[in-house]
């Protein structure tokens, strides 16, 4: 009761686009559907209490008996199987429709249900079913009163020669089919929306990437300034870990609440550092605005997805409670079949980091793995691992021949041919300040090597 209301409220008040709201899970309708299923089942004497009691006895029997799997001990089976057999050339694009089935074991000869605990109504009903399906033509008689005759015989029932053979009858479930039909088409509708949204956001990210990359290509002081700005913005963005946290403690996707907080922090930090409008090129502020928009739209998508997932889960739980048929355990099957993309955020974030963030090289990707400073001047060993020249010199002096990353014996053989000139040019272009600083450090360290520790203090007036 309560959830139906909050769900509706979220849909109406959270500013989702209209066509999203229309495609949301129709919680109320599904609830009514459950009611019908309930009625249908209790008409044949199978209300929730009876069904769960049957299930429990079945489980007990299983636990008490031998450890071999004994399907026949289950009084009934509830399966969600693909509707009809699919032809070879039927395309995958049509998600399989699920047909819920309630199957009861009956004696092939007599048409009598195999379980003694069934109520007379149910027995009668099942027998009628069996009759109408021409499985048997023998009426139930009172003499046939040993349905749970010999439990040991039951195990090899179907294939056996010495015991009675069994057949299953299917109880038609009209409202139930309706329930799953509705749920499934809604889920695939949601998947479509998500795909559209993904496509839209991805193309926005791509456009923005082009703009930013043009703006930050280092050619004059203007673009160099903007390059620095964007680098700081993206650094902050990565540090905020809005949609995914990469820490070892919990490397999972963030939920809406955490993502919203992360985005809020990011925006606040931009404000604090005065990054909003400190661009030399005119498009700067507009591009940043667009970037933030993409992120908040992504956030909305995440929220929409979350409340719909919640609604699906809740409705399935309700279904179970009312009918004791155990749909939740089958739900995994449904989700697998209906292509609900795991997460919109994942797809778009990948797009953001592959396209947009890649336009502005981040220093973290060009550090020497030994000194953690920019790998200037870069030396590429034969194993392709790159270190700064300073650390390489120290390693060679220590006669450490193994590459620190892969342990290949390639350090001693390195010489000036291993200097990576194209990477040098790249670093100089994109990280002019870091390179300058590191160059000075290298020179000072080399001086210390030559003249001793006092080299640093050479300017002291004596």
């Amino acid at each position: 009761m309560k959830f139906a209301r909050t769900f509706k409220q979220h849909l109406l008040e959270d500013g989702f686009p209209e066509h999203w709201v229309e495609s949301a899970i129709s919680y109320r309708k599904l609830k009514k559907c459950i009611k019908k299923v309930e009625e249908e089942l209790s008409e044949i004497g199978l209300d929730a209490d009876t069904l769960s009691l049957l299930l429990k006895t079945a489980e007990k029997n299983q636990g008490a008996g031998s450890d071999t799997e004994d399907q026949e001990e289950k009084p009934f089976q509830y399966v969600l199987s693909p509707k009809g057999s699919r032809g070879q050339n039927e395309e995958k694009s049509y998600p399989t429709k699920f047909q819920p089935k309630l199957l009861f074991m009956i004696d092939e000869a007599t048409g009598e249900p195999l379980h003694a605990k069934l109520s007379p109504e149910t027995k009668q009903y099942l027998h009628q079913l069996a009759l109408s399906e021409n499985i048997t033509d023998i009426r139930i008689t009172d003499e046939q009163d040993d349905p749970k005759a010999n439990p040991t015989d039951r195990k090899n029932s179907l294939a056996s020669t010495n015991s009675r053979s069994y057949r299953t009858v299917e109880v038609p479930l009209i409202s139930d089919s309706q329930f799953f039909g509705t749920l499934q088409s809604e889920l695939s509708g949601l998947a479509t929306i998500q795909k559209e949204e993904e496509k839209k956001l991805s193309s926005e990210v791509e456009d923005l990437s082009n703009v930013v990359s043009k703006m930050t290509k280092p050619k004059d002081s203007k673009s160099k300034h903007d390059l620095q700005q964007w680098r700081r913005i993206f650094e902050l963005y990565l540090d905020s870990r809005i949609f995914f946290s990469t820490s070892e403690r919990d490397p999972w996707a963030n939920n809406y609440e955490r993502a919203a907080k992360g985005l809020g922090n990011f925006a606040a930090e931009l404000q604090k550092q005065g990054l909003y409008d400190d661009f030399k090129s005119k498009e700067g502020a507009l591009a940043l605005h667009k970037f933030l928009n993409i992120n908040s739209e992504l956030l909305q998508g995440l929220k929409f997805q979350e409340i719909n997932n919640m609604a699906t889960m809740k409705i399935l739980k309700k279904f179970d409670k009312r009918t004791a048929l155990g749909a939740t355990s089958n739900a995994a099957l449904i989700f697998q079949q209906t292509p609900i993309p795991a997460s919109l955020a994942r797809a778009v974030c990948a797009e953001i980091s592959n396209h947009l963030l890649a336009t502005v090289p981040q220093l973290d990707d060009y550090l020497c793995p030994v000194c953690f400073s920019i790998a200037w001047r870069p030396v590429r060993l034969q194993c392709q691992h790159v270190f700064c020249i300073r650390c390489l010199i120290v390693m060679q002096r220590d006669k450490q021949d193994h590459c620190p990353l892969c342990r290949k014996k390639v350090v001693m053989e390195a010489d000036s041919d291993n200097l990576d000139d194209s990477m040098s040019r790249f670093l100089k272009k994109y990280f002019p300040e870091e390179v300058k600083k590191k160059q000075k450090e290298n020179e000072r360290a080399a001086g210390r090597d030559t003249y001793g520790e006092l080299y640093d203090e050479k300017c002291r007036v004596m």
Partner: protein
Amino acid sequence: MALPKRIIKETERLMAEPVPGITAVPHEENLRYFDVTVDGPSQSPYEGGTFKLELFLPDDYPMTPPKVRFLTKIYHPNIDRLGRICLDVLKSNWSPALQIRTILLSIQALLGAPNPDDPLANDVAQRWKEDQNAAIQTAREWTAQYAKV
């Protein structure tokens, strides 16, 4: 001498993104000296214990490995009475690309996989080989006795 950038960065990251089950806090007066705790890995005889260690970064770190020693008494074939650790990456297999966090993870892994064929504590290793169950039982008892906070 000023602290190298590398050590500053490592410390920052250890603080910002600690490794689960491991803490490493530098001393205020000597930023090269760390107080370390490592939780015993689950499903090992050290499970449930928290072990104290000390870690020191020598002057030429990362060209030479950090010096690490157990402070908590521990019954382990590769750790001796003084807490010294027999672990290849702390000696011959050290690489300057390894870090404090990776070394501590290796030590934690060593607790989960004792190697009595390359012993440091001979008596423990001997017992580990002769009667593994009894040795594991002793390790468990020592953990309960010394490594419970």
